[in-house]
């Protein structure tokens, strides 16, 4: 039974779990300083040079689990003590270079950056190299290595550099809070701020949902998570934690697909607005394209707005998803009134265990609000399929959808660049900042090939088969 992809996630989880455990008991302020020692007891270090450094880093992790630096507006933060100051020299020829005769590296280098010494061993002229990596790909001995930091490698929008102490530094004017660096840093030195304490507070103050009701809105990618149990058991687990009920964000996705397809038919060109990191990227890197972004709120915000405006005005709603960028979205003025807090699947696992809720022992509850099309928003391509279906259900038979589904922020960048230059022959851009779509989100417990199939399967299990049927109940 494997809950996490990496040991870094597991460490982060342990901190979250301990912080949450104390918070449920109202003993956090008494015991907060003891948490690092609880996680790393004894005198032998297990991760770093000594236990004292390990505990110092854990103290910083505890702070992030409690909401992080209040003065930093970004929801993603560097834990400077944890940053290992990895080398960042870019592409370098290693001693595996055998001084061959073919010189494929030289031929492929468009910048003429490769030269050879008397032993025919290759060298890269750093003043000419642009770190394209072409030489590395063609070398038959894999002798050219990329010494780029994993965080910088993960950050395709180049928001990460280093500070005067050589620790990673995030440029908040560029960062879109996608969390790619959070997931990729092998030392766990970049992390998303956690709002689990807010969630525990909301649940406790509801006094068993008597003062107000607490709703969990879950992202459809949940179908690819918690696979050691059944989805129905996860839903029961949420109710055990103290949520009044659980609602699919995918129903919001149905609502979005329905109105987005109408907006598209009217305007003739549109980009999606579901992925907060994609929208933030347009805002920061392609401001001229903002006018083309769909005016719809995201599925999360759409369903939460519906709940608060139409069914329960005093509702408190927590969104639970795969996404670190959603934590930024829920702070936006347009969204804030509808969503009270936001946590990831990683954090939900910590909440379950902090309250000793073993979901594998629970009965199953139902989760069924959305259609197939709302549910497949969780994977790249699903949104475009849903918009296509929306057009059909509206009766826009003459409108031919030409969609480009962008898988990851690099693909988004390429499409936006082409569109801004007028050389992209599509009328709809589906932008997904994470590879694979939401199932590739940094807040997922596990990532893998099977996840897409799980989402599609979950989609097919939906009671409602069309978008119109799924949303007709809301009118």
């Amino acid at each position, binding site marked *: 039974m494997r809950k996490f992809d990496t040991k870094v996630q597991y460490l982060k989880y342990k901190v979250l779990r301990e912080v949450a455990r104390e918070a449920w008991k109202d003993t956090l302020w008494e015991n907060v300083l003891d948490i690092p020692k609880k996680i790393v007891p004894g005198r032998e270090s297990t991760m770093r040079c000594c236990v004292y450094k390990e505990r110092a880093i854990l103290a910083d992790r505890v702070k992030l689990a409690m909401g992080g630096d209040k003065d930093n507006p970004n929801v993603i933060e560097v834990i400077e003590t944890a940053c290992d100051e990895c080398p960042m020299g870019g592409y370098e020829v290693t001693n595996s270079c055998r001084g061959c005769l073919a010189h494929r590296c030289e031929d492929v280098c468009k910048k003429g950056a490769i030269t050879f010494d008397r032993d025919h061993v290759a060298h890269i002229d750093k003043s000419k190299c642009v770190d394209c990596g072409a030489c590395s790909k063609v070398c038959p001995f894999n002798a050219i290595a990329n010494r780029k930091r994993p965080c910088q490698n993960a950050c395709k929008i180049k928001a990460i550099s280093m500070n005067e102490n050589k620790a990673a530094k995030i440029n908040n004017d560029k960062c879109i809070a996608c969390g790619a660096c959070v997931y990729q840093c092998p030392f766990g030195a970049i992390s998303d701020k956690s709002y689990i304490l807010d969630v525990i507070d909301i649940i406790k103050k509801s006094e068993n949902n008597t003062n107000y009701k607490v*709703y969990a809105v879950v992202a459809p990618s949940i179908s690819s998570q918690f696979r050691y149990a059944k989805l129905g058991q996860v*839903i029961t687990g949420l109710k055990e934690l103290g949520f*009044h*009920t*659980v*609602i*699919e964000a995918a129903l919001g996705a149905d609502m979005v697909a329905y109105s987005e397809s109408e907006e598209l038919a009217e305007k003739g060109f549109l980009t999606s607005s579901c992925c907060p990191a994609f929208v933030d990227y347009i805002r920061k890197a392609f401001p001229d394209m903002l006018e083309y972004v769909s005016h719809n709120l995201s599925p999360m915000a759409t369903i939460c707005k519906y*709940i608060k405006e*139409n*069914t*329960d005005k005093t509702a408190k709603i927590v969104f639970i998803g795969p996404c670190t960028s959603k934590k930024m979205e829920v702070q936006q003025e347009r969204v804030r009134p509808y969503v009270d807090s936001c946590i990831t699947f990683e954090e939900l696992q910590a909440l379950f265990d902090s309250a000793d809720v073993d979901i594998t022992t629970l009965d199953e*509850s*139902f*989760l*069924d*609000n959305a259609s197939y099309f709302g549910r497949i928003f969780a994977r790249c391509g699903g949104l475009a399929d849903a918009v296509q279906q929306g057009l059909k259900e509206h009766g826009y038979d003459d409108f031919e959808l030409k969609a480009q589904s962008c898988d990851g922020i690099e693909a988004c960048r390429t499409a936006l660049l082409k569109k801004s230059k007028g050389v992209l022959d599509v009328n709809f851009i589906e932008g997904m900042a994470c590879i694979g779509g939401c199932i590739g989100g940094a807040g997922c417990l596990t990532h893998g090939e099977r996840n897409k199939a799980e989402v599609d399967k979950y989609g097919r299990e939906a*009671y*409602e088969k069309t978008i119109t*049927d799924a949303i*007709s*109940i*809301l009118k």
Partner: protein
Amino acid sequence: MKITVCIGSSCHIKGSRQVVEGLQYLISEHNLGDKVELSGTFCMGKCKDGVCVTVDDKFHSVTPESVDDFFEKNVLSVVK
């Protein structure tokens, strides 16, 4: 009069959409649009008795098949 139908997951699977559609039809058929307010809610906490419906806070268990009967006894006879 206020009728609230549960549109949460459990009731949804038991046919709350059909119940809502049935009630919408009956309300307009009897021209009761100004007297009866129909709304939805997510979960009333009585999932086993779904589809859960309240009429001015009084609880009823309704199925898509019993909508006509429910409407006659608990809505029409009261309003008219």
